[in-house]
């Protein structure tokens, strides 16, 4: 198995509306990633595209549409799609392109332009449901998260204020992120608790916003990294991915078993048997504040029901024992679905190579884990990286 490293990353601003087309956003992120790795498109063997529903950008076969902006012209190019899980999964696909020995350098480019969808990107989510069982009820996407959050809160007796702490932490962490859409240095738990109730228990500040944006990372083989004497690199030492059954109304939503399976897969590969001791920081998927807690438990970085306690005790703060979402996460930086790779894979790379600037974790970190989540509350993708 060829050893694979991340050697460059780039991302655009994340904003509710950006002027650039999807292709242009891809180009900007790709150019940054290549520049930061000191490479050009000519060095790239293959390209992986990650992007979520076509209906956001308003183009079917969206991967084909984005390919020239992503550097894929006349190259082997593939799009992978696992819902929101794409934010980390596309890097896993990039990993197997290199680890297989078929490519030395692979670009992974993720994009979402949600503002193209009118009148509101939310309407796209009407098409993710089972046409017979769910769609006649005209569900709103927030409903299922509210249901999952409620189940989690009720089973473990979690207080809403302990969940709100996640939103506060991440929006404050995002203050140091140059691309952030919703950074807020002064936000308090009360602000979250007093924000508009959307679908109880979910309130407005519990949710990450829809955004436009793109991100890119460059992966390379160990040989290539050594030959080119590339210093800024972080190794991908474990990958895992898992999908649960489609029948979400048959599952107990209190614990994300699919995340746990993906994590165990990645940890086994990375030779991690005590994740809480061996992992220094985490970038779990946080489109909602409770999801960070849910995912910390799925990643086996907290016992079941324990994540809110760790958060309350400050363990997950940037200067805590286990910093979580030092990037600011989706809650602070924004949520252009697949492009959140910028905070998940990008942030791991920047932190592990000491390039995170104002967001740099103050103590030394050697091992980080990132995770994304998608489909009908059923997909987990996990990457472990080492400095």
């Amino acid at each position: 198995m060829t050893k694979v490293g991340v050697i460059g990353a780039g991302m655009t601003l994340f904003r509710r509306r950006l002027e650039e087309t999807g292709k242009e956003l891809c180009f900007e992120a790709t150019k940054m990633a290549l520049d930061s790795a000191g490479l050009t498109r000519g060095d790239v063997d293959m390209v992986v595209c990650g992007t979520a529903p076509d209906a956001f950008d308003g183009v079917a076969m969206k991967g084909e549409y984005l390919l020239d902006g992503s550097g894929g012209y006349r190259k082997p190019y593939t799009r992978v799609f696992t819902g929101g899980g794409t934010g980390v999964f596309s890097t896993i696909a990039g990993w197997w392109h290199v680890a297989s020995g078929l490519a030395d350098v692979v670009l992974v480019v993720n994009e979402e332009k949600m503002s193209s969808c009118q009148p509101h990107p939310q309407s796209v989510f009407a098409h993710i449901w089972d046409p017979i069982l769910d769609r006649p009820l005209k569900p709103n996407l927030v409903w299922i998260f509210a249901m999952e959050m409620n189940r989690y809160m009720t089973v473990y007796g979690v207080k809403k204020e302990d969940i709100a702490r996640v939103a506060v932490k991440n929006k404050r962490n995002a203050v140091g992120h140059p691309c952030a859409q919703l950074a807020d240095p002064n936000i308090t738990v009360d602000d979250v608790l007093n924000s508009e109730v959307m679908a109880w228990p979910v309130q407005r500040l519990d949710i990450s916003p829809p955004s436009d944006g793109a991100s890119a990372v460059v992966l390379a083989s160990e040989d290539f990294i050594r030959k080119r004497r590339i210093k800024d690199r972080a190794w991908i030492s474990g990958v895992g991915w898992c999908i649960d059954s489609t029948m979400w109304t048959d599952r107990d939503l209190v614990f994300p078993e699919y995340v746990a399976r993906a994590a165990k897969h990645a940890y086994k590969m990375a030779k991690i048997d005590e994740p809480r001791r061996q992992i220094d920081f985490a970038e779990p998927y946080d489109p909602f504040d409770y999801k960070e807690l849910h995912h910390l438990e799925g990643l086996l970085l907290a016992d079941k029901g324990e994540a809110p306690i760790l958060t309350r005790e400050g363990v997950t703060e940037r200067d805590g024992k286990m910093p979580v979402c030092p990037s600011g996460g989706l809650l602070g930086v924004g949520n252009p679905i697949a492009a959140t790779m910028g905070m998940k894979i990008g942030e791991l790379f920047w932190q592990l190579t000491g390039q995170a600037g104002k967001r740099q974790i103050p103590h030394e970190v050697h091992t980080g884990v990132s995770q994304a989540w998608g489909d009908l509350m059923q997909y987990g993708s996990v990457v472990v990286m080492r400095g």
Partner: protein
Amino acid sequence: MTARISRWPGVELSAADLNERKVTQTRFRPDAKYAWSAGEAMSRFLAELQNGRLIARSCRRCERILFPPRMFCEECFRPTDEWIFIQDTGTIETFSVSYLDTDAKRIAEPILVGVVSLDGASPKMGMMHFFGEMTKDEIRIGMRVKAEWRPPRERQGSVLDIRYFRPLRKGEQ
């Protein structure tokens, strides 16, 4: 590299830029319509809804009663075995009190929606539906409920043939 990057690309637009067409836009409404074959399991399920009944499939190997019904067992990967009627009573597994409609528009009167696990099916097997005849302060996880069916002539072979699930009345269990 955050430390060395001087420019983070992207030109932000406001809602007004778009709504007042200050930026060039092209508009397109896709012509994408579908009529899915319901298939064996869902066709029978929908037909039975019209009869005011809920139907499931059993798998002999894992001894589960699968609801919503399916022709294959995802756990054992084999065809399921028999049709079994289950009850229209159940337990609220989780719920939400929603002030959002489908398009994220705000609504004054909240929708009570959640997952009901149904009696007669294997544990946790249920469906998403609405709740009625209860207030947002009364609804709770673990509450026992029963389907409130539309009158037979109004049923169309849809999950909406059940109007909502309501609390059990006296004498019901």
